């Protein structure tokens, strides 16, 4: 079993449960005890299945007495560790997931997309932030370059992306309980998610819907009564812009660091040749040593570039996409409001119609009109309830999102700093070893 050497292992992410969470009770049943993890080789046509482990562990902390849902969150947590290692390309990307029930499942990339679209259709309209689907390729824009390059992600990066997607999904308490998610994680055969293919009928329908949504967004003028929402929306707009900019800068950093690595290696070779050509013995040796140092530094640059990429760049990319999902949820709220408004307008119309009928004295139509009024009253009530619910959900989701964001970034920053410290450590070591060589030139 080989495991991906470049990508970092997925982090155990903590799940926080909100005491208000409807599903809080239910999740406790899912807490599993922790026997030994067993690695099972996949039996299947695709070779080189690399271990992916789901390792749920229940750690139960004391419930905090503070029930305030905005502040202290219930520390009833359990850790799920999902790591996805390198898939081999077998036509499509396939991943193996070991679950503790010893079910090994293979998932294609399109399966992830299918899961996402199911979850999105179920949860977005009630205000849950559904983690965005992993993308097959990325459109990256390099600072200083005018063109944007569409690059197909390499398998390692893809695997990491899918892994992070899964982790984010299971972090959402509601989503974890979702039967589709559980099926995804555990069942051996998934019906092929055909509707995720770009040019399928469903795909086209999705595109049309997206366009319609965009148009609607422009036409809906919502009377925002709640300052919190207005403020938050603005915040997210700003954050979106800033993160995109940051992401572009970091991508540029990765690119340039890779370039630096290549140039350092090339210089190392050249210095070695110069050393060979040099006829003064001590200087010749020093130049050869210099070449070796530069070679090692080149390796350091490569490692650092990896850290830059896998830690920071990918995280930023994820958050750029997540914020799109967040904005989507705000849009859903607007849609809900619009629906509610429409219902009210309809109700008004029906009432007016009824009034007219009363004057016109048509008893049979009157009954129908009264029925319709009741129907629409119901709809209005439902609309208002939906609106309240979605607003409440969004508040909670945004709070959770922000907490997670701080945590995610903190974790990543610490890792990055550690990588920087390590790099400097190595640099010092190499140059200190070289110094006596330089001094020995006589």
């Amino acid at each position: 079993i080989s495991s991906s050497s470049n990508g970092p292992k997925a982090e155990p992410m903590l799940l926080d449960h909100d005491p208000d969470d409807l599903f809080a009770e239910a999740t406790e049943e899912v807490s599993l005890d922790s026997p030994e993890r067993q690695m099972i080789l996949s039996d299947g046509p695709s070779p080189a299945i690399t271990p992916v482990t789901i390792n749920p562990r229940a750690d139960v902390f004391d419930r905090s007495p503070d029930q305030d849902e905005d502040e202290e969150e219930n520390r009833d947590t359990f850790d799920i560790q999902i790591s996805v290692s390198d898939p081999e390309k077998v036509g499509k990307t396939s991943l193996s997931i070991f679950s503790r029930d010893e079910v090994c499942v293979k998932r294609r990339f399109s399966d992830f997309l299918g899961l996402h679209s199911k979850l999105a259709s179920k949860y977005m309209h009630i205000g849950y932030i559904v983690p965005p689907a992993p993308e097959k390729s990325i459109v990256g824009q390099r600072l200083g370059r005018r063109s944007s390059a569409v690059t197909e992600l390499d398998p390692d990066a893809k695997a990491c992306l899918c892994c992070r997607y899964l982790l984010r999904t299971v972090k959402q308490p509601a989503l974890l309980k979702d039967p589709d998610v559980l099926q995804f994680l555990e069942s051996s055969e998934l019906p092929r998610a055909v509707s995720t293919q770009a040019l399928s009928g469903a795909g086209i329908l999705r595109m049309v819907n997206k366009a319609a949504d965009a148009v609607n967004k422009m036409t809906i003028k919502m009377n925002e009564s709640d300052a919190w929402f207005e403020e938050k929306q603005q915040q997210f707009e700003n954050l979106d812009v800033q993160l995109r900019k940051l992401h572009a800068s970091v991508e540029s950093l990765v690119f340039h660091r890779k370039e630096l690595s290549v140039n350092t290696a090339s210089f190392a070779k050249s210095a070695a040749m110069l050393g060979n050509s040099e006829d003064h013995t001590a200087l010749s040796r020093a130049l050869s040593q210099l070449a070796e140092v530069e070679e090692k530094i080149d390796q350091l640059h490569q490692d650092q570039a990896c850290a830059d990429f896998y830690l920071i760049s990918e995280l930023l990319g994820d958050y750029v996409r997540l914020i799109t999902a967040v904005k989507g949820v705000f849009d859903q709220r607007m849609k809900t409001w619009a629906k509610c408004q429409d219902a009210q307008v309809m109700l008004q119309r029906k009432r007016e119609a009824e009034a007219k009928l009363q004057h016109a004295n048509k008893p049979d139509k009157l009954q129908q009109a009264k029925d319709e009024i009741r129907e629409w009253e119901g709809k209005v009530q439902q609309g208002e309830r939906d609106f309240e619910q979605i607003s409440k959900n969004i508040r909670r989701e945004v709070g959770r999102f922000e907490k997670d964001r701080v945590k995610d970034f903190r974790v990543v920053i610490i890792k990055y700093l550690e990588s920087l410290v390590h790099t400097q450590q190595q640099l010092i070591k190499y140059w200190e070893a070289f110094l006596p060589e330089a001094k020995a030139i006589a």
Partner: protein
Amino acid sequence: MTSISEDSDKEKVRSVSVDLNNDASLVIDIPDALCERDKVKFTVHTKTTLSSFQKPEFSVPRQHEEFIWLHDTIVETEEYAGLIIPPAPPKPDFEGPREKMHKLGEGESSMTKEEYAKMKQELEAEYLAVFKKTVQVHEVFLQRFSSHPIFRKDRNFQIFLEYDQDLSVRRKNAKEMFGGFFKNMVKSADEVLISGVKEVDEFFEQEKTFLLDYSSKIKDATAKAEKMTRSHKNVADDYNHISGALNSTAADNNTAFKKTISVCVLQKLEDRVASDQELKLTELLRYYTRDIQAAKDLLYRRARALADNENSNKALDKARLKGKDIAQAEENQKQCLQKFDKLSESGKKELTSFKARRVVAFRKNLIEMTELEIKHAKVRRLKSNNTLYGSKLSIFLLCQKSLGY
């Protein structure tokens, strides 16, 4: 207009000259320089105890073209054919900073105030670096002359140092430039000549082999080092952009971001490393590429003289055969032989001292570069460690808080 004045940093900046100002009887330096648009005006300052000069201490303003004039004049002096002529300093090249300034001007509207200020600061630093570099290289050029027993007595050199009026050096007109181009073409034919000529002297045979090989290798190493340094600068630039972007996000009241900003102080250090590396390693390689070329030129002149010598021998034999113009041919042959011997003798001395000089310069620069690398890495490690500790501590405290402690 930018100027630099006496700077203790200059000691470190003087990367390729090694003890060239040892002899107190003639001390030259460039303490000051002004940059006006395209032109750089160097202040050449001389302190001397030699009687051949009118005053014991004096300064004159000189422009780059006047340095080139001096170089070309020396090269054309027949007498110095057996010496390695110090390579001419390259023209001051402000293209890099100028391009950056242009970009800065264009992008001003799209940047925040902090970003703009930061980029401007960076630009100024780069400008200063180029400036320092060109001053140093012109200074070393003069010091090579002043420290050489024969060159220091050269009349043109003294004029250069002393004459307080403009030397009125015309810019080379088209014909002269073309002539120069032709000369270069002939020069590469001389490579063939040098390699082709039959060498009797083992010393020169070895030198020839060495110089030809080393010359191409050092050219290559210089190019690769330049590329590497440029990449390093790009990385530093990226850190600058990142820290700018983080600054605006940090207004978002998020301490995690603030921590990362201090990480981007590391960017500043990357920048320093890039320019220190540049100065030490790349400049060293660049300088010696030119110097190796000067040594090759000496070999060429000697090879020419050898060819002339052989030709004169043949001519003498022919004359003896024909019985005509023997005296003239004999005279010619004697002169050629003399010239050749003189060239060989001084050439040997020059090439030997050249090697010693080169080794010392490499040693000095490699040591200084390494010490700087270590120093910067230690500072970066310290800073990263501090930030790391701070971050971990704050997470720890946060966990404690949320657990209700």
